């Protein structure tokens, strides 16, 4: 399940690792599961399944390493292998297109949605959460991992099994899309785009 040497733990040690290093992340895991599936029941199943796998494969976890990243990776894999297959949701994003977009000269000159900080300050309800949920799951994921959970690019690359360059470009595109959604909210709240 994870690279690295297999560890040997006694039953008591396994239980201790599980309680002290794995369970404290349950709320973050549940939120991640929810953001992936957008269903509370599915999130619950996904988290339960993840913890079950984590315990089963606990000897591939090395104490002192990042338990949260390890757990997130299992959850993400369960989501792709089990949940996505079940719901047969096709991947909608053409990454080739995203990559070439990002690497093109135009990226710095594109018209960014005009959004002002004071408009954002008024978004105290579910606006941001709804806007995030409206993004494609792969874009949603990188924002959650980076902005909410504070993972570094390198950790995200491991969790998602993608190169760091892809983490960066996906994150860039995700933020762009999120900004577009938020500027629509801002418009509907009556903020005018006077600064274009």
């Amino acid at each position, binding site marked *: 399940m994870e690279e690295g040497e297999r560890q040997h733990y006694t*039953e008591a040690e396994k239980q201790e690792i*599980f309680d002290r290093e794995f*369970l404290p992340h*349950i*709320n973050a*895991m*549940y*939120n991640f599961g*929810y*953001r992936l599936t957008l269903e*509370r029941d599915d999130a*619950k199943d996904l*988290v*339960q399944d993840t*913890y*079950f796998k984590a*315990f*089963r494969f606990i000897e591939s976890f090395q104490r002192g390493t990042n338990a949260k990243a390890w757990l997130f990776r299992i959850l993400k894999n369960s989501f792709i292998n089990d949940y996505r297959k079940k719901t047969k949701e096709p991947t909608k994003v053409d990454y080739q297109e995203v990559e070439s977009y990002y690497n093109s000269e135009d*990226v*710095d000159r594109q018209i*960014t949605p005009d*959004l*002002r*900080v004071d408009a*954002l*300050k008024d*978004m*105290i309800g*579910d606006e*941001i*959460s709804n806007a*995030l949920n409206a993004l494609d799951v792969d874009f949603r994921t990188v*924002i*959650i991992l*980076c*902005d*909410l959970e504070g993972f*570094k*690019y390198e950790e995200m690359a491991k969790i998602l099994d993608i190169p760091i360059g892809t983490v*960066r470009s996906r*994150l*860039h595109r995700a*933020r762009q899309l*999120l*900004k577009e959604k*938020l500027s629509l909210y801002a418009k509907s709240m009556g903020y005018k785009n006077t600064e274009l």
Partner: protein
Amino acid sequence: MEMLQLILDGQVTHEQREYFKAHMESCMPCFKSHQVDMAIKQLVKDRCCGEDAPGELILQIRAQITQKNA
């Protein structure tokens, strides 16, 4: 543009950050864009952590593990 993102996510060296801070003092588009990006990042942090996991979930997880472990 890419630098803005690296700064935002704290993935730069101290020197790079200092260099960029100096740059922003004279570059309004970068400054504004950075302010908005930081505000959104903060908003995600504050508003998207969702609900806590249901209490019975931990019990179910424990029960499942004990069962399979026995």
